[in-house]
C-alpha cells in the first residue's frame, strides 16, 4: 500500500456555483449522499403506503379504501383491490424496498456521505462517476414508478420475477407485457448505477485514506461499506445480464427462460429450448448476496453507534467483526440454492446448499454475541441512535434464528412460500436494516444538517416501532406454521379463513407502527430547519467525521490534511479528556 498522504489532499473539483451545480448535478459526495438518502426516503414512503393498502385488503378484503380508485380505476374499482392489482402493488412494494431502499440508503446514502470523511478524504475517488451513479439510479427509480401510470399497471410477478410468468408477455396476465418490460429495464438500470457506485467505493477506500489511516484503523462502517461494495460488484454483474436476457425474451424473440410446449389460452407459445430454472439460478446468485448487501452496512452502522453508546469498542474489535463480515460475504455466494429447495433442481444440490447456509450462521452468531457482550460492563447512553442500535441487535437475532428452519431443506418443504418466510426476511433484512438506517439517521443527522433531531419524538418513534415490528412480524411466523401461504390477495381456503383475525391484528399493528413513521418524517423535516444547533461532536465520538464542523465545509477538512494516530474507538479511556480519544488526536495516552 503506497503512502497516500499527498494524493489524498488533492481535490478533484472546485466548489460549484449556482443552484443547479450545487444541489442537483453536484459532484460533492455529501450532496450525492443526501440525494441517495432522499431518493430512498421517497421510495420507502411509497413502499410503506403500498404495504398499508395491501395489509388493509388482507384483513378486510371486501371493504373499500376511499380514494383508491383514483390510483387505478381498473385495479381498484370503487376502492376495492382486484386480485391482480394486489399482486401489482406487491411487486412494486418488494422491488422498491429491496432495491431503492435497502440497497440504496445504508450503502449509497450514508456510505457516500461518510466514507470519504471517515477515511480523511475530501471526496470520492471518481466524483463524476459518483454523480452518474446517482442519476442512473434515479432514472431506474422513475422507470419503476412509471409502471403505476401505464394502462396495464405494474407487473404481477413479484420482485423475484420468476420466469416464465415474467417472460411470456401479457397473455400470462395483467402487467406482464409493458409493465414487466419496464420493470426489467428499471432493474437493469439500477444494476448499472450500483456497479458504478461499487467501483467508486472500492477505489476510494483503497486509495484515498489519509496518513495514518491504516486498514486496521478504519472504522467498522468503512469496512462494512467496502465489503458491501465488493459484494455489489460481483452480484449486480450477474443480475444485469439476466435482465438483458429477460428483455430479449420479450422483445427479441429469444427463449432463454422459456421452454417449449407451453400453452396459454389454448395457444401453443412460439418458444422452445429455454430453462426456467436458469432465471432462478441467475436471480438468486445475485439475490442472496443482495440480502447481505442490505444488511452488512447496517451491521457496520450498528457496531459504530453501539461503541459510542456503550462507551467502549466492540467486543473482539475490528479484527473479529471484519473477519466475520468477510466470512459472511464469501459464504453468501455459495448459498443461493436455499431459495430453490423445492424448485425442482436436483435434490442432491439442496443438501449441498444447505450446509454453507447453516455455516453462515456461525459468523453471524459471533457478531451477535459480541454485540451483546459489548453491552456487558458498558456505560450505556440511551439516546435515540443508541436505542435503535440496540433494537437492531434484538431484531437481527430474532430474524436470524428463524433462518435456521428455512436453511434445512426438509423443513423448507412445509415452510416454503408461507408467512413464516415473510416474517423471517422482513425481520432480518427489512426491519433490522431499517433500524440501522434509523440509527444512522439520528446519529449523523447533526453532522449532515447542522441541527439535532428532537429526542422526545425520536424516543416515541423508537418505542412504538420496536414493539410494533414484533407485533407485525412475530404473528407471521405463527400463521406460517399453520400453513398460511404468501402472495395470496385473499384467503378463501377453508383452513385459511380462521387465520384472518390474526391478519387483522397484524394490519392494526402495521397502521400504528406506520403512524410512528409519520412522526419520524415530521421530526426529520422539522429538525432540518428548526432543530437545536448541533455541536461538532454531540455524541462524544472518536472518528474523523466528528473532528469537523457540522455541517462539514465543501472540502470536508477545510484545507487541513488530517493525520490519524489512534484506533477508531478509543472510548471509555481513563485519563483522557472526557472519556475518549479522537482518532486524529496527536496526544499519546498510556493505553494507546
Amino acid at each position: 500500500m503506497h503512502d497516500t498522504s499527498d494524493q489524498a489532499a488533492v481535490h478533484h473539483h472546485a466548489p460549484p456555483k449556482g443552484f443547479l451545480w450545487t444541489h442537483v448535478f453536484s459532484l460533492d459526495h455529501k450532496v450525492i449522499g443526501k440525494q441517495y438518502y432522499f431518493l430512498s426516503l421517497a421510495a420507502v414512503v411509497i413502499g410503506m403506503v403500498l404495504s398499508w393498502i395491501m395489509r388493509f385488503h388482507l384483513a378486510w378484503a371486501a371493504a373499500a379504501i376511499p380514494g383508491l380508485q383514483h390510483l387505478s380505476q381498473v385495479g381498484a374499482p370503487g376502492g376495492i383491490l382486484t386480485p391482480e392489482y394486489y399482486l401489482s402493488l406487491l411487486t412494486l412494494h418488494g422491488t422498491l424496498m429491496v432495491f431503492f431502499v435497502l440497497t440504496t440508503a445504508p450503502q449509497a446514502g450514508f456510505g457516500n456521505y461518510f466514507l470519504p470523511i471517515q477515511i480523511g478524504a475530501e471526496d470520492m475517488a471518481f466524483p463524476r462517476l459518483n454523480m452518474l451513479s446517482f442519476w442512473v439510479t434515479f432514472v431506474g427509480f422513475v422507470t419503476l414508478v412509471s409502471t403505476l401510470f401505464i394502462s396495464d399497471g405494474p407487473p404481477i410477478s413479484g420482485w423475484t420475477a420468476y420466469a416464465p410468468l415474467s417472460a411470456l408477455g401479457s397473455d400470462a396476465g395483467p402487467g406482464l407485457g409493458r409493465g414487466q418490460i419496464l420493470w426489467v429495464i428499471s432493474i437493469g438500470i439500477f444494476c448499472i448505477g450500483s456497479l458504478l457506485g461499487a467501483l467508486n467505493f472500492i477505489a476510494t477506500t483503497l486509495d484515498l485514506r489519509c496518513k495514518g489511516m491504516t486498514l486496521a484503523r478504519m472504522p467498522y462502517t468503512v469496512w462494512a461499506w467496502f465489503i458491501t461494495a465488493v459484494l455489489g460488484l460481483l452480484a449486480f454483474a450477474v443480475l444485469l445480464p439476466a435482465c438483458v436476457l429477460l428483455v430479449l425474451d420479450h422483445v427479441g424473440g429469444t427463449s432463454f427462460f422459456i421452454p417449449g410446449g407451453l400453452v396459454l389460452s389454448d395457444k401453443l407459445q412460439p418458444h422452445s429450448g429455454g430453462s426456467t430454472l436458469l432465471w432462478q439460478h441467475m436471480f438468486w446468485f445475485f439475490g442472496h448476496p443482495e440480502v447481505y448487501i442490505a444488511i452488512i452496512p447496517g451491521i457496520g452502522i450498528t457496531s459504530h453507534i453501539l461503541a459510542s453508546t456503550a462507551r467502549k469498542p466492540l467486543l473482539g474489535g475490528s479484527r473479529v467483526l471484519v473477519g466475520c463480515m468477510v466470512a459472511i460475504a464469501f459464504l453468501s455466494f455459495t448459498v443461493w440454492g436455499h431459495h430453490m429447495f423445492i424448485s425442482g433442481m436436483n435434490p442432491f444440490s439442496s443438501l449441498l446448499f444447505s450446509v454453507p447456509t447453516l455455516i453462515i450462521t456461525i459468523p453471524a452468531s459471533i457478531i451477535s454475541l459480541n454485540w451483546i457482550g459489548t453491552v456487558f460492563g458498558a456505560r450505556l447512553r440511551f439516546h435515540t441512535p443508541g436505542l435503535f442500535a440496540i433494537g437492531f441487535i434484538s431484531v437481527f437475532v430474532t430474524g436470524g434464528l428463524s433462518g435456521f428452519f428455512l436453511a434445512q431443506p426438509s423443513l423448507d418443504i412445509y415452510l416454503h412460500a408461507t408467512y413464516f418466510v415473510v416474517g423471517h426476511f422482513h425481520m432480518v433484512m427489512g426491519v433490522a436494516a431499517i433500524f440501522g438506517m434509523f440509527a444512522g439517521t439520528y446519529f449523523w443527522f447533526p453532522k449532515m444538517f447542522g441541527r439535532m433531531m428532537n429526542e422526545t419524538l425520536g424516543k416515541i418513534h423508537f418505542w412504538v416501532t420496536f414493539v410494533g415490528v414484533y407485533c407485525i412480524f412475530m404473528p407471521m411466523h405463527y400463521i406460517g406454521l399453520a400453513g398460511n401461504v404468501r402472495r395470496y390477495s385473499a384467503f378463501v381456503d377453508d383452513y385459511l379463513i380462521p387465520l384472518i383475525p390474526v391478519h387483522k391484528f397484524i394490519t392494526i399493528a402495521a397502521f400504528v407502527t406506520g403512524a410512528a413513521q409519520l412522526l419520524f418524517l415530521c421530526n426529520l423535516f422539522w429538525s432540518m430547519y428548526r432543530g437545536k444547533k448541533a455541536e461538532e461532536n454531540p455524541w462524544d465520538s472518536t472518528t474523523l467525521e466528528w473532528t469537523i464542523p457540522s455541517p462539514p465545509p465543501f472540502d470536508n477538512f477545510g484545507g487541513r490534511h488530517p493525520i490519524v494516530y489512534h484506533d477508531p474507538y478509543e472510548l471509555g479511556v481513563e485519563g483522557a479528556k472526557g472519556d475518549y480519544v479522537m482518532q486524529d488526536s496527536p496526544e499519546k495516552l498510556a493505553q494507546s
Partner: protein
Amino acid sequence: MGKFFAIVLTVITLVSASIFAMHTWWMPVDISVHGPALDKQFGETLMGTGFGFLVAQLSLAYFLWKFADKGDGRKVREFPGGPKVTIITAVVLVGLEILALSFVGQKAWASVNLDPAPPNAMHIDVQAEQFAFYFRYAGPDGQFGTIHPEKINDGSGNYFGLDPENDIPARDDIVVGSLTIPVNQPILLTIHSKDVGHSIYVRELRIQQDFVPGIVIPVHFTATQTGKFEIVCTQLCGLGHYNMKAYLEVLPQDQFDQWLKSQAGQ
C-alpha cells in the same frame, strides 16, 4: 431507560416464545409416512433456536438493566474472558446444532426426495395450469396417453392434449379435478405445468413441490389416514393464484376401487 428497555424486551421475548411453546397456531396433524421425521426435526430445531432466542434476548435485557450510564464515572468493563468466549460458544454450540441437524435432516430429506418411489407405487399424472390442477389416472390398461401440447384445449376439456383417435393408451385415461387416493398405498405423482410455474402444497402430507415448465418432476408419498384435505398452489402463477386449489381425498382401498371403477365407466 435501561430498565424500561429490559422490561419491554423481556415481555416481548416471553410472549413470543410462549405462543410457540403453547402451539397456539401449529401444523395440522401429519397423515404421511415420511412426515413424523420432518416434524421431529422441526421440534429439535425449535428447541435449539428457542434456547438461543431466550438466552440472547434475556441476557441483552439483563445487561441493559444493569449497565446504564449513571454518570458516576464507573469504569467500563470487558466481557469476562473476552471475545474468545463468544467465538468458542458460537462455533461449538452452533456447530453442534448444524452437525446434528444436517445428519438428521439429510435422512428426512432423502426419504422424500432422493429415495425412488417404491415399485408398487400407484402412478398419477398431475398437470397444473392457470388456475387449476388436473389429475390423470392411467385407466385399466395401466398406460398413459402421450401429451400433445398443440392439442390442449380447455374449452373442450382436453386439458392434457390427448389424441384418443390415434393413441390407444390415451383412450382410457381418466382426468379429474381432484386427487383421490387409497390409504396406506404408496403414490407416485409426476407433476408438470402447462403454462407457468405452480406448486402443489398439502399441509397434512408435508408435501410441497414446484411445477417447473419444461420438466416433469416425481413426487412420492403414502397417506396413512383417510379424509378430505386441501391442495393449494404456493408458487405465484398470476392473478388467480390465491384461488387455485383442489381437494385430496384419501379413501379406504375398497371405496377407492369403487370410485376408480365409476370414473372409468364414464
